[in-house]
């Protein structure tokens, strides 16, 4: 069975948790920019964590379903409707055969992740269903969705509920909608922290930075005080990762996101911690952001706590369903 893309919206692509194992061939992880939001939506829809769903940027997405499916979404402050029913973030909803799901433009934030029971059944490419928009492979023909596209859906379990139906239970609120109002991103020091001037180090954690227009899934370019180094000069390229805050010669930092290149030559002043990538994934031109330094051990503790919370959430969902 399929879902038809009645309206593809501004920029919508098929994404899962990303591609691993091919960095040595220059292939970045990609996948949902907020992988945590994607897996929470998948859990609500009764899918495996890594099932393929949709990443919708700025919404305006309309899908029509051929058969009954459970759908769920997380991310920015969107309004999503199944027919006339409102589907709140972090809740599961049943959509009937022939019904339409509409994701309107967000009030705040920029991206939302929609999971559909059974997942989007596009072929695995290099072990993943994620769309690599730079390499033009994976997902739906290696590209963003267009009006009229037909998405094959995978098999799912029995749905013994009548449409329309919205679950009373939900995902924890901070997971359902990213707390975008407080755009404080926690960072750990980068490999080249010491190469920056004391002023630059202070500016990074005290000043506010504005996201500029030339930002995309590769990275958010930031405008703020110049982050200067003690000595200019070229560095050898080395690995970078989503969350890396690199500083080109202009002194204006770039926060790398999921589609970033695998290696880069700009100095790395800091890295946004993994649990705060969810906030980074909502940034949009004009947004302001600040940074706050934490220790590596704290960043990893926060990650571990979220993993444990997510494991408990999955167990809780199973209890609700049984």
């Amino acid at each position: 069975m399929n879902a038809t893309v009645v309206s593809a919206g501004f920029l919508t692509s098929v994404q899962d948790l990303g591609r691993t194992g091919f960095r040595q061939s220059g292939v970045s992880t990609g996948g949902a920019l907020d992988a945590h939001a994607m897996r929470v939506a998948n859990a609500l829809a009764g899918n495996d964590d890594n099932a393929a769903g949709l990443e919708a940027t700025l919404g305006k997405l309309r899908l029509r379903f051929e058969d009954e499916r459970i759908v769920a979404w997380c991310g920015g402050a969107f309004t999503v409707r199944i027919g006339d029913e409102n589907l709140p973030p972090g809740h599961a909803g049943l959509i009937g055969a022939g019904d339409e799901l509409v994701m309107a433009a967000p009030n705040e934030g920029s991206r939302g992740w929609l999971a559909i029971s059974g997942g989007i059944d596009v072929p695995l490419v290099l072990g993943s269903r994620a769309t690599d928009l730079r390499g033009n492979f994976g997902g739906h023909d290696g590209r963003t969705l267009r009006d009229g596209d037909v998405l094959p859906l995978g098999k799912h379990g029995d749905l013994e509920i009548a449409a329309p139906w919205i679950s009373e239970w939900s995902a924890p609120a901070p997971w359902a909608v990213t707390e975008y109002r407080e755009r404080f991103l926690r960072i750990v020091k980068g490999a080249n922290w010491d190469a920056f001037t004391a002023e630059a180090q202070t500016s990074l954690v005290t000043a506010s930075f504005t996201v500029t227009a030339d930002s995309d899934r590769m990275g958010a370019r930031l405008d703020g005080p110049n982050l200067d180094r003690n000595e200019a000069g070229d560095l050898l390229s080395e690995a970078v990762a989503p969350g890396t805050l690199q500083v080109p010669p202009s002194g204006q930092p770039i926060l790398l996101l999921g589609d970033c290149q695998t290696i880069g030559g700009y100095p790395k002043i800091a890295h946004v911690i993994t649990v705060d990538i969810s906030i980074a994934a909502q940034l949009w031109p004009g947004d302001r952001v600040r940074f706050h330094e934490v220790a590596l051990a704290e960043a990893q503790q926060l990650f571990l706590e979220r993993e444990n919370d997510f494991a408990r959430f999955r167990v809780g969902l199973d209890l609700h369903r049984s």
Partner: protein
Amino acid sequence: MRIEPLGDSALLVRVVEEFHPEKSLDAVLRATRQLEAAAIPGVIELASAYSTVAVFYDPARIISFEEFKTQIEYALHTSLEPARPRAGAVPAIEVPVCYENEFAPDLGDVAQHAGLSEDEVVRRHSSARYRVNCVGFTPGFPYLTGLPAELATPRRATPRTEIPAGSVAIGGAQTGIYPSKSPGGWNVIGRTPLRLFDVKQEPPAMFQAGDRITLRQISREEFDSLRQ
């Protein structure tokens, strides 16, 4: 050898402090094989480049960073089975390159910068021997060392918004080949008809770090006939 964090879910092993085109690469390849052989729990994947190997890991599967770092250090001090390095024993891969004007918008600039004729730039570029230092930037993009020093040309002040797939280019002291259409700031001096990245191949990139490469100048006719 130094190990430092690369965010909260990766670390960088600085295998050598001073970069040397051949020696550093061999040391990095060796460290990569040591880490692969160790199969340390929690390790997701590796990414090598020039003088470093990055180790991506799952922070939920390690006890602590210090403990994990110790495991990495141990692996890097474990001797390997006598290896058959891909480089050295294996013959160089020959890459056909057409340097005709329509594929070489920046050949004039490179020639001017080097103080050589365009023909001489092509002759020297196509007769040098190269080695793949790493693959990255875009899927399958090989960074080659071995560019004759006189051909080194600074990156363009304004990057081009679109460089065609197969373009052979010079960026500083390096040369590389764009596997797919992409923006880029390197000086384009030729084009290969080969397909450098194919998701149906295993591995998907035609080149791997350590490979030796030679270039062969071809005509426009041969370019067309080789084009896949």
